[in-house]
C-alpha cells in the first residue's frame, strides 16, 4: 500500500489528505459534504478505517461506500440500516459522527458560516443556505473543514458574519462548558493541512502541499496561523490509493471540483 504516485492531481492529494481526518475515528458515521470530502471519507473506509459508517446521502447506512455519480443499472448498494433524516439527528446527538463540511467563512476561533454575508441580519447583502445543521453538528460531534480555495474571504479576520457553528471562542463559551468540549479536527485546503492544536486552540499549520510556502498560507489567511518549527510536506497519494479513488469516482468527477484541475505538485 505504499508506492508513491508519480503524477496526481491536487484534488486527489486533497482526497488522500482528507481521508487522514477519519483514520483514528473507529466506528462513527462519516459524512463528507461535497464530492472531495465524500471521496475522502470513502477512501478512509476502503483502506485504513473499515469500521466507518457512511450513508447513501439519502436514507440508508451502507457497509461499503457508493461510487459517486451515475451507477450501472445492475448496481446494488450495500445497505445496512435505514437512516432517514429524523434518525440522522438521533445519531448526531448521540455523538457518533464526524462530518467534513465546506463553510463559506471560517474565523480565528474555528467558528464557521454558511448563512449570510454582509449587510445587516435583517437585510443581508448575500443570503446563502441558512445555518442548516451546523449549530447541532458543531456542539455534538467532531467536525473537519474542507476549503477548495484558501483565501482571506474564507479565512476572515474578526468573527464570521453569522456564526453558525460553535468554535474555540472564550467569549461565546456556554456556561458549564470548556473549550475542550469543542472538537474541530482538520482543515484541508488547496494549500495545506491545518488543525486547531496551536496555543489556546489557535489554527496550526500541519503540512504544506508540494510547492506551497508558509508565506502563501499566511498571506491568504485573514488572521495569524501558528507555525510550528517542523512542517511536513503533505504526503503524496500512493498508486494504491489512486486506484481506489478511480473505483470510487469512475466518471472522474473529481477533475471538475477545482478550477482547471491543477496538478498536485506545483
Amino acid at each position: 500500500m505504499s508506492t508513491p504516485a508519480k503524477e496526481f492531481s491536487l484534488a486527489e492529494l486533497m482526497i488522500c489528505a482528507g481521508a487522514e481526518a477519519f483514520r483514528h475515528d473507529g466506528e462513527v458515521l462519516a459524512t463528507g459534504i461535497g464530492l472531495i470530502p465524500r471521496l475522502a471519507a470513502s477512501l478512509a473506509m476502503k483502506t485504513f478505517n473499515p469500521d466507518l459508517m457512511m450513508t447513501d446521502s439519502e436514507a440508508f447506512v451502507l457497509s461499503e461506500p457508493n461510487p459517486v455519480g451515475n451507477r450501472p443499472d445492475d448496481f446494488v448498494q450495500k445497505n445496512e440500516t435505514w437512516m432517514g433524516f429524523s434518525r440522522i439527528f438521533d445519531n448526531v446527538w448521540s455523538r457518533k459522527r464526524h462530518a467534513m463540511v465546506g463553510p463559506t467563512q471560517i474565523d480565528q476561533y474555528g467558528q464557521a458560516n454558511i448563512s449570510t454575508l454582509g449587510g445587516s441580519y435583517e437585510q443581508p447583502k448575500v443570503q446563502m443556505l441558512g445555518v442548516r445543521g451546523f449549530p447541532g453538528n458543531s456542539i455534538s460531534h467532531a467536525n473537519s473543514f474542507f476549503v477548495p480555495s484558501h483565501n482571506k474571504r474564507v479565512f476572515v479576520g474578526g468573527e464570521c458574519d453569522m456564526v453558525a457553528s460553535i468554535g474555540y471562542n472564550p467569549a461565546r463559551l456556554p456556561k458549564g462548558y470548556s473549550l475542550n468540549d469543542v472538537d474541530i479536527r482538520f482543515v484541508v485546503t488547496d494549500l495545506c493541512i491545518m488543525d486547531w492544536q496551536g496555543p489556546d486552540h489557535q489554527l496550526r499549520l500541519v503540512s504544506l502541499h508540494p510547492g506551497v510556502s508558509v508565506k502563501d498560507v499566511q498571506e491568504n489567511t485573514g488572521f495569524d496561523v501558528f507555525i510550528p518549527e517542523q512542517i511536513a510536506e503533505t504526503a503524496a497519494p500512493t498508486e494504491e490509493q489512486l486506484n481506489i479513488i478511480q473505483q470510487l469516482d469512475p466518471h472522474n468527477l473529481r477533475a471538475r471540483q477545482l478550477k482547471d484541475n491543477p496538478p498536485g505538485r506545483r
Partner: protein
Amino acid sequence: MDKRMTTADMVGELRDGMTIGIGGWGPRRKPMALVREILRSDLKDLTIVAYGGADVGMLCAAGKVKKVVFAFVSLDFIPLEPYFRQARQKGEIEVMEIDEGMMLLGLRAAAWGCPFIPTQIGLGTDVIKVNSDLKVIGSPYDEKEWVAMPALKLDVSLLHVDRADERGVCQIKGADHYMDDWFARAAEKTFVTCDELVDSDYFADPEQSRYVFWERSMTTGVSLMPGGAHPSSCTPLYGFDVAHFKEYNASAKEGGFAVYFDKYISNTTEEEYQQKVGGLEAIRSLPMPVY
C-alpha cells in the same frame, strides 16, 4: 368517514396570518399543487415553517409571506433558492433561522404539548443571538446552560404523499418520509394531497401499512392530485424536474417571478399546469435522482 376535499376547499380553510407547516425537504416531496393554489389566492401575512425549497421561494416571491422559520432554503442541485435570496436581500421578510434539528424538536414539542424541549443546539452560535425569543435556561440537574427550543405550533400543515385512502390513512413509500409525521402531529389541521387514492383494504397488507407514519386522526382532508409534487420529487413514483427547476431559477434573473407565475400558475388549473410541463406521463417518467 370521507375526508376527500378539493385543493380549493383546503386553501379556502386558510386565513391571513396563519402559521403553516409545509412537509418535504428542499426539492423533495413538496405539496406543490397546494402551494400553487395558495399562489392563486389572495392569502397574505403567512408564517411558513419548512425544510425549504421552491415552496418557500415561490410564496416569498408572490408576497404571501410575513415570516419564514427555516434552517435552509435550497433546491439541492441548485444550492441557493433564488427567490428566497431576493426576499432576504431586499429585507422583505422576517425570519427565525434555526438548526435543522431544532426545527424537529420544535415540531415534537408542539406535537407532545410541551412548551419547549431543552437542547445543546445553538449554544455558542449566533442562532441564539439573532432569535431574541429563543431562551437560554439553566438546568435543574447540572451546571450547564441549555437552549429551550419552543414548540412550533402550526395552524395547518400541508403535505404530499404517495397514496391515501378517503379516511386519511397516508402512505409514503420513498426512502425517507422526512419530518412529515411531525408536521402532521404539530398542526391543528393537516391537509394532504396524494398521487393515488386507494381503498382502505390496500393497507391490510402489512407491507403497505408499515409505510404509514401517522394516524388518520392527524389528517383533516385528502385530495387526489396525481403528480401534485411537481416540480419536486415523489420517489419512487417520479424524480424532481431538473429542467423545470433550471428554468425557474433562471427566471429570477430574466424578468422575475411574474414571468414564471404568468406562464405556469396564473389563471391555470392544475390540469393545465401539467399540460404546460409535458403532461402527467412526462412527470411520472422523470428519473430518480442519484445522490
